């Protein structure tokens, strides 16, 4: 079932293939740590999949180099009159890669597919109550409440061709078995898949019939997943690949110091934080305090925050490449609260005093859970934090593990304090409020990543107001209040924004977007 188009034409010898690469104008090779699990844009909502498929499929709207929303398959959109929702005017003259024309039926079909039970992206459409095709190039999304951010929230909602999907038995995303769309693509985007060997390599070629003007000069792009960071770096430095993301922080100097290579540094939108078991009635991993939960007291939580020396963490562990965080989104994300941009200062003495005041003059021991393969330097960070906590009497019993059994442990409340990174999928402050700060509510699907169940009635009250407010100033006022409350409560200890480190050969021009998506259409090989 594998595509062998390329191989079949040059079956006689692999050497021929390589000769062909050399002769072609601007082939481009890149690597990243994880292979996209599938080519189906609705089957798995993971960063590797969405990032990769954004080169092939397109949505109604798309994000520009600065993350702003711009027209894509829709040329304009306006709020509906007389009811909640949005009307999208679609682009005419767009064709899919197999040559069939794009129209509102394809959007309707893709909506039904993406919001079906088998889809992993259906949460994007939770506010949608009805979708109406007005004519071939107009479609309306009706929402249950005013939803000013709806167009932003569907930037990764990718459109499939109805005829193609139905003809190939792929009308629904593959859930437990593969279907045609798992390995094959037919988007409207700038690139098509010419061969794919999952976990080994995927070759993309430009789509000549793309509606937009191509600004890249890539004639063929080959993607290889390389899991081992040192191997990936070696592949770049030996010239076998042109670009890799990410590279380890500590190797930045090594790459920069070499002729012919460059490092692209940026801030991701992911904020790394510590969370607490707010509603636990006792500590699980303590050897001295076993009858109550000291972290239920905001004073203790503040003491923990004050014990952390972010400057040293930045200098030694992150080589000066992180930005300390004050709230759950970094500055620059919409809804960021400028009014609450300060984080608790490093002050071990004050921390000790607070602990004494809270009734723990000698401190106490507790369990700290961390991942060791999820975030940059996550394990080293937790070790450093544990050592800093120990300096004020908070003796962390550190346990680290792979992410594959981390979330289940957190869901089972198996922690006293834990590490979490959060990237706002909608690039708006509302996102972490919905997932991390609202009281857990399975019914309404709120607070689903609020493992410690931080709960403040005022925050719960403010969330719907934020979601429905059209006036930006009023909306920001609501968000400022939420940030203020959660900072006072020390609901989490936001630590820093995760850095984004890419490396490329000097002759490659590319754009690093804050969501860590790699867009081939912005690549120029000089």
């Amino acid at each position, binding site marked *: 079932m594998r595509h062998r188009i390329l191989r079949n034409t040059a079956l006689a010898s692999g050497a021929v293939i390589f000769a062909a690469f050399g002769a072609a104008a601007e082939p481009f090779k890149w690597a990243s740590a994880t292979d996209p699990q599938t080519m189906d844009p609705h089957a798995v909502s993971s960063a590797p999949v969405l990032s990769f498929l954004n080169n092939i499929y397109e949505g109604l709207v798309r994000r520009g180099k600065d993350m702003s929303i711009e027209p894509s398959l829709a040329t304009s959109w306006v709020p509906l009159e007389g009811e909640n929702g949005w009307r999208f005017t679609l682009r005419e003259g767009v064709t899919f890669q197999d040559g069939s024309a794009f129209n509102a039926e394809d959007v309707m079909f893709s909506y039904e597919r993406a919001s079906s039970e088998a889809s992993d992206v259906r949460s994007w459409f939770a506010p949608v109550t009805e979708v109406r095709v007005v004519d071939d190039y107009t479609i309306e999304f009706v929402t249950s409440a005013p939803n000013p951010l709806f167009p932003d929230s569907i930037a990764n909602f990718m459109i499939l061709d109805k005829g193609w999907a139905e003809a190939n038995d792929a009308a629904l995303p593959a859930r437990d078995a593969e279907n045609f769309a798992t390995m094959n693509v037919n988007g409207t985007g700038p690139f098509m898949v010419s061969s794919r060997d999952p976990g080994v390599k995927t070759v993309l070629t430009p789509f000549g019939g793309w509606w937009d003007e191509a600004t890249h000069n890539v004639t063929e792009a080959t993607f290889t997943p390389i899991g081992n*960071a*040192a191997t990936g*770096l070696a592949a770049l430095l030996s010239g076998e690949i042109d670009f890799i993301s990410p590279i*380890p922080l*500590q*190797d930045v*100097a*090594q790459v920069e110091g070499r002729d012919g290579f460059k490092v692209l540094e940026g801030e991701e939108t992911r904020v790394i934080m510590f969370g607490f078991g707010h509603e636990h009635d006792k500590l*699980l*991993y303590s*050897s001295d305090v076993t009858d109550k939960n000291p972290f239920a007291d905001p004073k203790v939580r503040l003491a923990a925050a004050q014990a952390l*020396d972010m400057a*040293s*963490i930045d200098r*030694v*562990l992150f080589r000066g490449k992180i930005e300390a965080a004050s709230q759950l989104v970094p500055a620059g994300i919409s809804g960021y609260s400028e009014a609450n941009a300060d984080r608790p200062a490093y002050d071990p003495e004050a921390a000790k005093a607070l602990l004494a005041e809270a009734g723990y003059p000698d401190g106490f021991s507790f*369990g700290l859970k961390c991942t*060791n*393969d999820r975030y940059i330097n996550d*394990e*080293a960070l937790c*070790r*450093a934090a*544990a*050592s*800093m*906590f*120990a*300096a004020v009497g908070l*003796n*962390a*019993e*550190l*346990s*680290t593990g*792979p992410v594959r059994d981390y979330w289940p442990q957190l869901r089972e409340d*198996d922690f006293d304090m834990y590490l979490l990174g959060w990237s706002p999928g909608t690039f708006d402050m509302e996102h972490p409020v919905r997932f991390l700060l609202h009281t857990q509510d399975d019914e309404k699907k709120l607070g689903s990543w609020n493992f410690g169940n931080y709960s403040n009635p005022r925050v719960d009250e403010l969330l719907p107001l934020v979601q429905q407010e059209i006036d930006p100033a009023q909306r920001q006022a609501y968000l400022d209040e939420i940030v203020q409350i959660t900072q006072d409560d020390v609901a989490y200890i936001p630590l820093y924004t995760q850095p984004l480190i890419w490396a490329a050969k000097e002759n490659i021009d590319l754009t690093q977007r804050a969501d860590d998506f790699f867009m081939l259409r912005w690549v120029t090989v000089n």
Partner: protein
Amino acid sequence: MIAFLKRSEGLWLFVRSPAAIVAAVVAVLIIFGAAFAPLLSPVNPYDLSSFSLFDGLIPPLWQEGGNAKFLLGTDDQGRDMISSILYGARLSLIIGLAAMVIATVLGVGLGLAAGYYGGRFDAFVMRIADVQLALPAILTALLIDGIARGVLPADMQGDLRIAVLTIAIALSLWVNFARTARASTFVQMNKEYVQAAIMMGQRPARVMFVHILPNILGPLLVIMTVDLASAILLEATLSFLGIGLPPDSPSLGTLIQIGMQFLFSGEWWILWIPTLFLVALVVSINILGDFLRDVFNPRLR
């Protein structure tokens, strides 16, 4: 009597083999350092409050930026390298030795019995060995780790990591012993002294452990040394694959795994000093194993 002769002959061979002497000295030094790590180390690397990020990434004394407080420099956490290495070697040796002992007892016991009883029991043991061989060490480690995590209470798991790892390593090593013991036992079973002992009605356990075992000890000793070396390396490899010891109580293997991150960043000492220690330790154990082989002159299976 025979044992005594062999021993004295061994002593004589030992004096004549410079490599063995050097290896023995190195091994003894490292083992000594590891055994008395708490007395010799400047700080206790397991005590989180004994080091600080402030002191992170300090190079060894002889390099620019070195600090007399940290002879061999510090790692990215500001932890003294000497202390980490001594404590790490201690853990590596404890795990290696314990795994080897468990594997020996298990493997030799089963191998002896399989060779002695033969037939169905032999087939049974050998098929278990097949099952074991089919499970790569990494998987055995995952299996044991998983079961321990599922069965044991949460707060005990940290302390039990070492035991879990030891058992996993032991399980992936015992087959060697079993196969060797079994093959040697087969050979011994045909010897007259064994047949005589059996005819005289001695209990199987007595025949196995009193008569056969001393005569197959040679090849087993060699395997023991080789497997001690393998166990230490296996522990390092498991760390590389992410199922070794946690980095806040590192073994030599974990230290190397941590150091791998700094392979190209200029902080060479974080990787190469523990690696050097590990290699020195493993090489000397292997040389001693070679030496033992020369003494017993067995054929390694």
